[in-house]
């Protein structure tokens, strides 16, 4: 018997060892979140979209924001620039935003107020503030850093017919949520659902990717909703005319074009 065990045991160990790589093929929670942020916020070298936002209150009243969004990645370090031009509503038509986003420090942000032809620099210590009154924060729009949160792999499960990794992320500094649970597509790396919990661990906001389409090489969330389950408000966002790698130049993301929209792209 003894000799047999001597054979079986190593075999079992070998089997275990052989199956281990299959398990290790699942990337770490950090890698999953990193790939998800890359897929969601960094796809392509540049991007253009016409973005329609509907801000809906609990009574069902709707306010709309209609904008063109341009984005460019500057180098591989995670630096990005965003340009947003408001086509509507009428009272803010022509207003534009410029954001220079850095991986490890606060963004530089400017707003152009067309009635005064005024470019104003704005204090940018508000990553967690609402973007134009919606249920999305500035950070939801332009992304966060993988290092801002600690990530833990929870499980794998199917969500909406897609295989997903379920990850829990806890912010390292005190912000408006205490933890976030994400369902991340195992193949396309896009977040399909996110739940944000408040300091008392009660569900606060829920993000859902309502429509995912392939645009050129890149899987893209073209319709999304953020619902604040505590206030009853929600915001629906639709991306139309999405284009990647169209050759946007960095100089578009400067004060000159804040004042005079680049008509080739802003339409």
């Amino acid at each position, binding site marked *: 018997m003894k000799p047999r065990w001597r054979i079986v045991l190593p075999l079992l160990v070998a089997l275990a060892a052989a199956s281990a790589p299959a398990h290790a093929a699942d990337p770490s929670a950090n890698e999953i979140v990193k790939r998800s942020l890359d897929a969601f916020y960094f796809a392509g070298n540049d991007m253009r979209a016409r973005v329609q936002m509907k801000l809906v209150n609990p009574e069902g009243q709707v*306010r709309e924001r209609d904008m063109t969004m341009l984005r460019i990645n500057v180098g591989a370090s995670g630096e990005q620039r965003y340009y947003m031009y408001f086509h509507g509503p009428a009272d803010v038509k022509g207003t534009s935003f410029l954001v220079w986003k850095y991986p490890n420090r606060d963004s530089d942000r400017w707003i152009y107020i067309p009635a005064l032809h005024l470019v104003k*620099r704005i204090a940018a*210590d508000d990553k967690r*503030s609402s973007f134009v009154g919606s249920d999305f924060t500035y950070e939801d729009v332009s992304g966060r850093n993988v290092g801002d949160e600690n990530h833990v792999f929870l499980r794998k499960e199917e969500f909406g017919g897609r295989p997903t990794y379920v990850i829990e992320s806890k912010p390292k500094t005190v912000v408006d949520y205490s933890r976030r649970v994400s369902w991340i597509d195992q193949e396309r790396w896009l977040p399909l659902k996110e739940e944000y919990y408040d300091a008392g661990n009660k569900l606060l906001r829920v993000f859902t990717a309502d429509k995912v389409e392939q645009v050129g090489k890149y899987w893209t969330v073209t319709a999304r909703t953020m619902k604040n389950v505590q206030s009853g408000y929600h915001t629906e966002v639709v991306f139309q005319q999405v284009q990647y790698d169209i050759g946007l130049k960095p100089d578009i993301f400067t004060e000159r074009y804040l004042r005079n929209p680049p008509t080739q792209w802003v339409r």
Partner: protein
Amino acid sequence: MTATIGQPARAAASVAAALITLTSPVAARAEGVSWNGFAQTHVAERTRRVDCPPGIACDFPAAELRGQLKAEGRNASGNADFVGRFDLLRDAAVNDTRVITRELYGDATSQKASARLGRQVITWGVGDLLFINDTFPKDYVALFTGEPMQYLKLGSDALKLDAYPGSTTVELVAAGFRPDHTPTARRFILPDPLPAGLPRRIVEPDHGLADLEMSGRVSRYLGSWELAGYASRTHYRSPAWRVTGTEIVGTYPRLNTVGASLTGPVAKGVLSLEAGYYDSPQDPEGRDPSIENSQLRALVGYSRQLWEDGTLGLQLYGEWMRDYAAYLQTLPAGFPVKNRLRKVATVRFTQLFAHQTLTFNVFAFIGISEKDHYIIPSLRYAFSDNVWAEVGGNFFGGNRSGQLGSLQDNSNVYVTVRYAF
């Protein structure tokens, strides 16, 4: 285009710009014109019961119904466009109805440069309601009666050329003279040390080619910091009054300015610095009491977010008179004596509520040297994407001989309702 600049008439540039854009082959291929606008009512009521002189809009210094139409269009290739913005105003306070061309300009744009011709609003500098290197026309009547902020600036009838060599921006403006809208006895109760009973007459600078005002700005980013230099050859935009025997004549003395500004991020906020030198070439010694003494003006400002949707901005501003001894010697009797250094602090606090549909804002000028103040609180609610209403006030107080305190009989509360389409 060069021939057009030479037109002396104030409106010529605007009209020419419109003609160029509307009648050129460029416009024939236009992608269509979009129309927007709003209807607005605005009423300001004086808060202090005062005995008004006859002929002044006493109880309601502002009472108006306004419709604005804005047309804009561009050609298919995107290198030419135009904007026209017109107000039809029923101004019940002074019983007047008129059409106002707020803006009317055409743009030609290329990769390296752009040109804008016509009536256009230009805003320079980094101050918040404090202007040093922005010498373009302003509407203080609109400010003091609580009109929406867009009415603070008046358009200049100008040719503006912008060039972008490297990462530098160069802006040049050639403009015909336009005065500020300054408070007058039609709507305001103002101290007036000039002799009563004499007829008054205002003489504007000539509008010929040689009299064009020139302004320039060169700016550049150094990392996250923007550095800008400014110069202008212009005029004071409020009249300098002079008694000439049988009448009082107001003129707009020549003014040259040179200055600089710097703005960038500091400790999660925005720091702004600006300085400028105001030279009065018609009064080089500072001995003419009707003309502003040459001055150095400077401001430092800092704004940052305090908490979600709450922002605080602070500024310190100073005007330093160059020839103070000459000023004191020549100041006529009856005029208030200014300090050599006039210091003003400002505070702005803004808080948004209810998904940014409700905005509370307060802006306060605090005259440190002149012991006076001007406080502008306001509350605006957006009922929908199209309709907002604002209530607010313009409260002047403190020392009556101060620039702000002298307006205290004009403190008012206002309400504005706008429907935008």
